[in-house]
């Protein structure tokens, strides 16, 4: 593989990195890592296959899009599972009883535990604690949500 194609792939990956941005890296690291991995893989495959500059550029950008989408989809499933656990916990779990969630695809898991129930302006509200283990690291947060007339729970503050 000519050295110039490697340079081109590297430059395009820097473009992808700039496009995904530091904020995305912090907010959704898996999507960013997926994008960069996809870009690198796509670029290298195109270069190895003897593709020209345009082909490599296309493969880098296409790989970035696909990789970013895959990474984002996994995080989305984590979020959906956590949100479902939160709804179940707030609606029907007694205080102190955790409702757990696990994403077997990522190995991520967590739980939502109601810690206090009260009424505010005629609405039921519950304080809760969330615990999660993401990539082996424990994370804990607290929040308050109030029950809306349609049965959903809206975060406060």
């Amino acid at each position, binding site marked *: 593989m000519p050295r110039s194609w490697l340079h081109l792939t590297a430059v395009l990956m820097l473009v992808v990195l700039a496009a995904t941005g530091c904020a995305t890296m912090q907010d959704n690291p898996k999507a960013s890592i997926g994008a960069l991995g996809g870009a690198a893989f796509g670029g290298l495959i195109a270069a190895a296959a003897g593709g020209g500059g345009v082909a490599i550029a296309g493969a880098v950008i296409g790989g970035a899009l696909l990789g970013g989408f895959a990474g984002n989809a996994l995080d989305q499933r984590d979020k959906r599972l956590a949100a479902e656990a939160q709804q179940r916990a707030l609606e029907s779990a*007694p205080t102190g009883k955790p409702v757990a969630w696990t994403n077997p695809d990522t190995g991520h898991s967590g739980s939502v535990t109601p810690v206090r129930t009260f*009424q505010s302006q005629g609405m039921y509200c519950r304080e809760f604690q969330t615990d999660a283990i993401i990539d082996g690291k424990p994370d804990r947060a607290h929040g308050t949500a109030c029950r809306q007339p349609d049965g959903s729970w809206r975060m406060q503050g």
Partner: protein
Amino acid sequence: MRIAYGCLAASALGLLLTGLAAAQTRSDLDTKTWVKEHDKNADGALDREEFFQAVVEAFYFRDKYKTGYLAIEELKEASPEMLSAVKRKDRDKLSLQEYVNAMFRDFEAADTDKDGLLTVEEIDVYIRTVK
């Protein structure tokens, strides 16, 4: 008057437990379990704040349709006396504040040593006494 409060309170407190168990679809909820679940500082008894939290949660689980009030049909399984109290008010539902007030009359009557704490024994004795 105190006796009337006591009767109302005892029935409400005793049936609070069975009502809670039904509302949470649990069969394991006895006095000891209930006290333990709400005894935040693990001193073996419920103080007023712990009791208040327990009562608010009981109200939440009893309120099947989450209207913010307990309707007569939601009170029936809880206590005939409480139902009578609602009827005396010429209303068909009970607010959280009214429910809390009734339960705190229970608290005061059951707290025989007046230390501001409800133990499992005090609750059990109180329920048996009024039955």
